[in-house]
């Protein structure tokens, strides 16, 4: 049975983890977007070396699991190379950002490639430079195509932030585990609340995704 006083007891403790979850999400999201655009554009570069090097990054991070990458960055790399990536907060942000950046770079690349060829031709006929074609014509349309996928990945990233509890970050799930191990009878209410927390955090993102889908339906000429 879920009792109301248990609820009052557990809620503020879980809420303490909220700050970590949200801050990791925001930082990891920003970092992953930057990685996505950088890697996505590099994979379209004329330079073979840049293209190959970027696809090594993308395939490694897509081909292995986030939790393994997290442990690598947190435990293995500092011991092997003596490189400290900073606090566990930073390690979590970097691991999630690199992982999702790799996935999202494919979205960036695919969107740019799927802008119709006629758009480039019209831009050439108007004598735009290659950079102007990208900036004024291709990229704005590609961005509209990316938005729904980007918000989708951001929702997944929110869920992935819970992994940072495994490297000792005190996020929502971490506090949930603490309370549960101290008092097993509270396990149901703890995990119900954890669910609700994550869902409430996801709600605005889901709303944003709807909006993104509407925007992207308009204003794109795709192949």
């Amino acid at each position, binding site marked *: 049975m879920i009792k109301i006083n248990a609820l009052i007891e557990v809620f503020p403790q879980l809420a303490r983890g909220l700050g970590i979850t949200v801050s990791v999400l925001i930082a990891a999201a920003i970092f992953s977007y930057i990685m996505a655009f950088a890697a996505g554009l590099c994979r379209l570069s004329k330079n073979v070396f840049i293209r190959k090097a970027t696809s090594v990054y993308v395939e490694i991070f897509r081909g292995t699991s986030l939790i393994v990458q997290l442990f690598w960055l947190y435990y293995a790399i500092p011991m092997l190379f003596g490189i400290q990536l900073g606090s566990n907060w930073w390690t979590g942000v970097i691991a999630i950002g690199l992982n999702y950046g790799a996935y999202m770079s494919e979205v960036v690349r695919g969107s740019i490639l799927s802008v*119709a060829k006629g758009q480039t031709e019209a831009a050439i006929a108007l004598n*735009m*430079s290659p950079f102007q074609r990208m900036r*004024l*014509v291709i990229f704005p349309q590609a961005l*509209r195509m990316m938005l729904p996928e980007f918000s989708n990945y951001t929702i997944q990233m929110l869920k992935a932030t819970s992994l940072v509890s495994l490297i000792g970050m005190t996020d929502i799930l971490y506090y949930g585990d603490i309370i549960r191990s101290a008092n097993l009878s509270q396990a149901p209410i703890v995990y119900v609340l954890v669910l609700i927390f994550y869902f409430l955090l996801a709600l605005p993102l889901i709303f944003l995704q709807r909006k993104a889908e509407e925007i992207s339906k308009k204003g794109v000429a795709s192949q």
Partner: protein
Amino acid sequence: MLKPIVEYKDVHKSFGEVEVLKGINLDIYPGEKIAVIGPSGSGKTTIIRMLMTLEEPTSGDIYVDGKNLWKMEKNGEMVRANEKHLREIRSDIGMVFQHFNLFPHMTILENCMTAPIHVKKEDKEEVRERSIHMLERVGLGDKLNNYPSQLSGGQKQRVAMARALVMRPKIMLFDEVTSALDPELVGEVLEVIRDLAKHEDMAMVLVTHEMDFALDIADKVLFLDKGIIAEQGTAREVIEQSDNARLQEFLRRFRK
């Protein structure tokens, strides 16, 4: 003696193994209106795409205002043109496409204003006035802030023409600009072209299947067949005096 603004000199073009243009020689004079007709696959589109720098000739030269379009001089040698060279010459040329290719994320006024502002670095207010004027001229003065998706095919094509015109090209290329349109929308687009042909002193090259229209407005008609210019002359010469059997058959099929 008037000098041609465009000269094709023995231009060949192959796609892979297939040679689709087999030695094109052509002079276009300032202000001249040229209609290009011919069967499907004869290379009409390819001819004008090479002038728009969308397709590179396999061999031969194209000169615009006396300058070699696809080659430039470097250390006393002629080498393949770079982007900067192409951009310099391209500013004289404009093109209207079969499928309009309007920018869907911009209003139609923005479609017209973007290139003059960013490419030619012209004054924004002056460009706005000129664009509005041009859109009014093609009958779309009341749609300035609409997006392309809100327009009919005929309206889109008229925007595409206005967009090309505000760049003030010396040569305008039209690639079957009415063939993607519903039949009832063809007339409004042809009217705009007729107006341009009458009042603008730029050269115009029209690839078209609207045979009667083309013969009506063109100073010169080219009949393209299997990658060569099989016949050229005034409309009258080409239609009435040519004894080219394939041309006669083509005309029988396409004229009402």
